[in-house]
């Protein structure tokens, strides 16, 4: 049987081509993901391991947990502790580490490293073993810094240049005195690192006289664990803990692989979708091959092959196809992995260098996935092949797949779809996270139901297209009839396209609605003209508020602070605001009392009020992080939204109890409203700081929109693979149709349908199938988008459904384009068929 199966594979090379391609693409996606994530994670781990070269044991401060009325304290690592650590037997030296956020501007005033990976730290003494200098000397005093070689190269800075930078708002303009080499993972990933002398770093990073970590180097001959034991004896257990360098490296490696595995899982989900779409094509192809070979298979049965042997011969064929595709996919995947790494490089997200990692696991997974998926998809057609009776060898009539009744199928499909819709609808009535699981279940049931029902749906939906097709005369009429001739095949083909479009539409509807509602929230609840914040979301120095308050035309200003506290033995975060101005900067609906913040009078959002049983006039006792206690009174209760929530009290009340007073954001209202000149004035007041963003509402909306656009574009990119596989499916189906109907096409040519007419007929069939899939997909996508929105809306007061009509039209157009493109080759083939052989072939 093996030989028969193998021969069949070679005999149908061309017809198996699309199947191989579909599996190949899916496998390439899987193995590309694995190669890429393994390579990146390997490179990061290597580079971070190097970063711990200089650390044998690290001492880290402990934080006490919040207990009773007290907010837990983060203990400080001080100079005496460092000196003690450096003095233990086996310690060669000790370094106090200070770090924080430091943005550096390039020569054009633009931020280097995008904000999130812009780091600052301290240079220890005159010669810091962590950072070997390649030029210049160590920084001393507030006006000197050292920067890493990569940042210096990128921005073109040399020793002696003045650099604009910022730590928490105010602009600093120190001179570069040194340039150093580093293996820091963030720098390798495209960030920047600026080093101050230790005292300056401590001052800038709000930890005067303290270190974030003490790194101890072991003397030659002392092991990391021996040193750690020695240190444990001198380090007070409740204030700090000790960790070996090896453990730090291991932990970081684990963190990196955990972060990568999240990305890997995400990508594999999309690879899975592409593979799933591929199964439709595989099943279609094998169904056709079996149908064509009815006589042959019946003959095998007639001469004594058992049913199992027949099924096995089909499965062996699938195995060979799957294996070929998997090997090709693996090769393509390795290429994709390599290409993605260099692509990330060109996009600016530098990744550390390292070899391309193709692990045995990747190879195994790719081969297994390719073969298994193909064989699973071919299993049903294989079973059907086994059911061909031996007598079919004698009869001239082909067993047609379509003649089988669809009643059972339709009943099952309707049941699934109905239950699915019901569960989804039920889930929309539930609250937030409770509804997620039922909604997911309902969605899966509904999609399965629609898959099963597609043959039934194809008739009315395609019939609806008849008036349009009539314009194309006989070609249109024949195309319509051909497209419903094999409802199962048409359904499988359209379903493949449907999956991708359902996801794309659903995501678009959700993203559009979310964007709109966040936008609305920002613009409806906030009356401030400007929001000032750090580029990376870090906090701003109180200086910023002071400087802005002094700008001409500023009528109201408030910094938003965040402080932990204990109330009723629970941790609550307090929002510090400028009580005098907050009323005119925000527009929050008040449900009880009045919106009044000042002294001991605070406002509370309704959720918090409810959980503590407060209403306007209630009093409560708060414990601040410094341990002081105070009685506060609820002046009013307001409706919270995603931007403004919690207990709001006056900054003047809060400030004495805060260790570092810093603002998360500053809200500004100006006399003339938002305008370019006002914005200029505000930015100028802050010294045109690259790390500080001054955004008006429009900028804010734009940045939200930009975030959503970026996210959507990534999703579109990932789902594109599923659509490409679906295109292969349409090509495959059309090629099958043309092949099966070559006799008809020959006759049509003979009695006078020209090549153009034949081409048009095939193209229209393709268009009908694709649009059918497109309409189903967009319809389902809108439904899911709506349902998911209902769920989200229960937690988001401003949520409203936004139907992206323009996008939906584009998706429909995309489906049409898929149809036209997929028909190119089959239509050409049909038009070029040799009439005489086509008429005679049976």
């Amino acid at each position, binding site marked *: 049987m093996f030989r028969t199966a193998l021969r069949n594979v070679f005999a149908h090379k061309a017809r198996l081509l699309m199947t191989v391609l579909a599996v190949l693409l899916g496998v390439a996606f899987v193995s590309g993901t694995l190669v890429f994530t393994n390579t990146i994670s390997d490179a990061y781990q290597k580079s971070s391991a190097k970063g711990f070269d200089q650390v044998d044991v690290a001492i880290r401060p402990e934080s006490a947990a919040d207990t009773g009325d007290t907010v837990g304290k983060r203990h400080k690592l001080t100079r005496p502790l460092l000196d003690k650590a450096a003095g233990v037997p086996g310690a060669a030296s000790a370094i106090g580490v200070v770090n924080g956020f430091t943005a550096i501007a390039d020569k054009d005033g633009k931020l280097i490293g995008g904000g999130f990976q812009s780091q600052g730290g301290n240079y220890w003494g005159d010669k810091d073993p962590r950072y070997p200098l390649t030029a210049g000397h160590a920084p001393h005093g507030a006006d000197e810094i050292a920067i890493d070689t990569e940042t210096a190269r990128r921005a073109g800075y040399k020793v002696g240049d003045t650099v604009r930078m910022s730590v928490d708002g105010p602009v600093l303009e120190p001179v570069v005195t040194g340039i150093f080499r580093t293996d820091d993972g963030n720098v390798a990933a495209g960030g920047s690192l600026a080093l101050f002398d230790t005292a300056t770093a401590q001052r800038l990073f709000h930890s005067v006289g303290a270190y974030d970590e003490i790194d101890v180097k072991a003397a030659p001959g002392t092991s990391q664990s021996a040193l750690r034991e020695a240190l444990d004896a001198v380090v007070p257990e409740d204030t700090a803990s000790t960790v070996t360098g090896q453990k730090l490296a291991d932990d970081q490696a684990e963190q990196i692989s955990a972060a990568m595995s999240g990305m890997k899982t995400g990508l594999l989900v999309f690879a899975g979708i592409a593979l799933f779409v591929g199964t439709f094509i595989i099943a279609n192809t094998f169904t056709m091959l079996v149908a064509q070979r009815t006589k042959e298979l019946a003959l095998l049965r007639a001469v004594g092959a058992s049913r199992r042997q027949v099924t096995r011969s089909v499965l062996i064929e699938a195995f060979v196809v799957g294996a070929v595709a998997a090997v090709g996919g693996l090769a393509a995947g390795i290429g994709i992995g390599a290409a993605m790494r260099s692509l990330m490089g060109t996009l600016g997200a530098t990744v550390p260098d390292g070899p391309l990692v193709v692990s045995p696991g990747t190879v195994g997974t790719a081969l297994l996935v390719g073969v298994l998926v193909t064989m699973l998809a071919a299993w049903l057609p294989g079973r059907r092949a086994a059911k061909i009776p031996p007598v079919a060898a004698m009869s001239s009539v082909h067993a047609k797949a379509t003649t089988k009744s669809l009643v059972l199928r339709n009943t099952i499909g309707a049941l699934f779809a109905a239950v699915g819709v019901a569960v989804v609808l039920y889930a929309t009535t539930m609250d937030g996270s409770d509804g997620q699981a039922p909604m997911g279940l309902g969605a899966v049931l509904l999609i399965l139901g629609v898959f099963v029902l597609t043959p039934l749906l194809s008739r009315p939906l395609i019939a609806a297209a008849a008036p349009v097709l009539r314009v194309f005369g006989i070609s249109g009429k024949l195309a319509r009839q051909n497209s419903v001739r094999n409802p199962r095949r048409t359904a499988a083909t359209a379903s493949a396209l449907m999956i991708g479009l359902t996801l794309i539409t659903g995501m678009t509807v959700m993203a559009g609605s979310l964007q709109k509602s966040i936008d609305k929230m920002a613009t409806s609840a906030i009356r401030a003209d400007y929001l000032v914040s750090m580029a990376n979301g870090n906090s701003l120095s109180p200086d910023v508020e002071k400087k802005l308050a002094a700008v001409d035309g500023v009528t109201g200003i408030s910094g938003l602070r965040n402080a932990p506290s204990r109330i009723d033995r629970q941790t609550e975060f307090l929002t510090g605001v400028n009580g005098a101005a907050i009323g005119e900067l925000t527009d929050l609906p008040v449900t009880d009392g009045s919106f009044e913040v000042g002294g001991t009078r605070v406002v509370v959002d309704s959720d918090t009020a409810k959980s503590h049983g407060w209403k306007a006039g209630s009093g409560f006792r708060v414990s601040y992080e410094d341990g002081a206690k105070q009685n506060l009174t609820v002046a009013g209760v307001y409706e919270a939204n995603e931007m403004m929530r919690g207990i709001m009290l006056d900054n003047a009340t809060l400030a004495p109890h805060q260790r570092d007073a810093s603002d998360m954001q500053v809200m500004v209202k100006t006399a003339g409203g938002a305008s370019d000149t006002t914005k200029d004035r505000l930015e100028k007041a802050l010294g045109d700081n690259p790390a500080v963003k001054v955004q008006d509402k429009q900028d804010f909306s734009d940045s939200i929109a930009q975030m959503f656009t970026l996210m959507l574009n990534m999703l579109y990119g990932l789902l594109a693979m599923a659509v490409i596989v679906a295109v292969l499916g349409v090509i495959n189906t059309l090629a099958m149709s043309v092949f099966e109907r070559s*006799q008809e096409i020959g*006759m049509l040519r003979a*009695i006078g349908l020209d090549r153009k007419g034949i081409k048009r007929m095939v193209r229209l069939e393709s268009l009908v199938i694709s649009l059918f899939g497109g309409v189903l997909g967009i319809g389902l996508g809108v439904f899911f988008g709506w349902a998911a929105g209902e769920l989200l809306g229960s937690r988001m007061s401003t949520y409203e459904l936004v139907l992206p009509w323009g996008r939906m039209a584009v998706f429909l157009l995309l489906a049409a384009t898929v149809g036209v493109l997929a028909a190119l080759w089959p239509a050409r083939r049909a038009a070029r068929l040799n009439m*005489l052989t086509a*008429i005679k072939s049976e």
Partner: protein
Amino acid sequence: MTTTPLAGTSTAVAARATELSKVYGQGETQVVALDRVSVDFRQAEFTAIMGPSGSGKSTLMHCVAGLDTFSSGSVRIGDTELGSLKDKQLTKLRRDKIGFIFQAFNLLPTLNALENITLPMDIAGRKPDKEWLDRVIKMIGLADRLSHRPSQLSGGQQQRVAVARALASRPDIIFGDEPTGNLDSRSGAEVLGFLRNSVRELGQTVVMVTHDPVAAAYADRVVFLADGRIVDEVHEPTAETVLDRMKQFDGKGRTS
């Protein structure tokens, strides 16, 4: 180009092949399918082309019907010379001037009987001549089966639909390629009866390739082909006379 009819009759010529040759391959492997064949098909005449397998009878029909290209010589349908036509013009010619009946019926399974009959007019985007259509349908006797799909019809009925399809557009000439090859003798006789009636009563011109002497006996004239040449011609044939001629060729063997 010669326009003299080969046979001395006064009737107009519907299709004419002159010195028609069709050669496959080159050099050693060259096969001559048609060797300078000249033949006329007169209007309102029923001609049968006969000959053993490989004699070139199907090739001759395909070339004259504009389905296949030829190596040299000329073919005319009415006043139109086929040799100079491009595919598009040939297609139009087949659509407007020629009707076809195939051995395997070749109906479209998605269309019902009536739609199959009017298919050539639908392709051309023309309205069928109602009166003529009714007459054709009446003649083939399928008036009560018009809304049936081909799969619901017997082989004989399907071929009758095919005959109606060929007649419906009133072509200048109808070509049949073994039209009774797939039918039992009774259904075959019916179909041949219709073809003969269409010639006698409707003035249609029919050319049919067959290897069945009984079928050929329905024709007004039988042309015999062997090895790509016309070797004989019989007028007003009967099954016996046709069979006799065929035996003669078999006796002579295939020498050249």
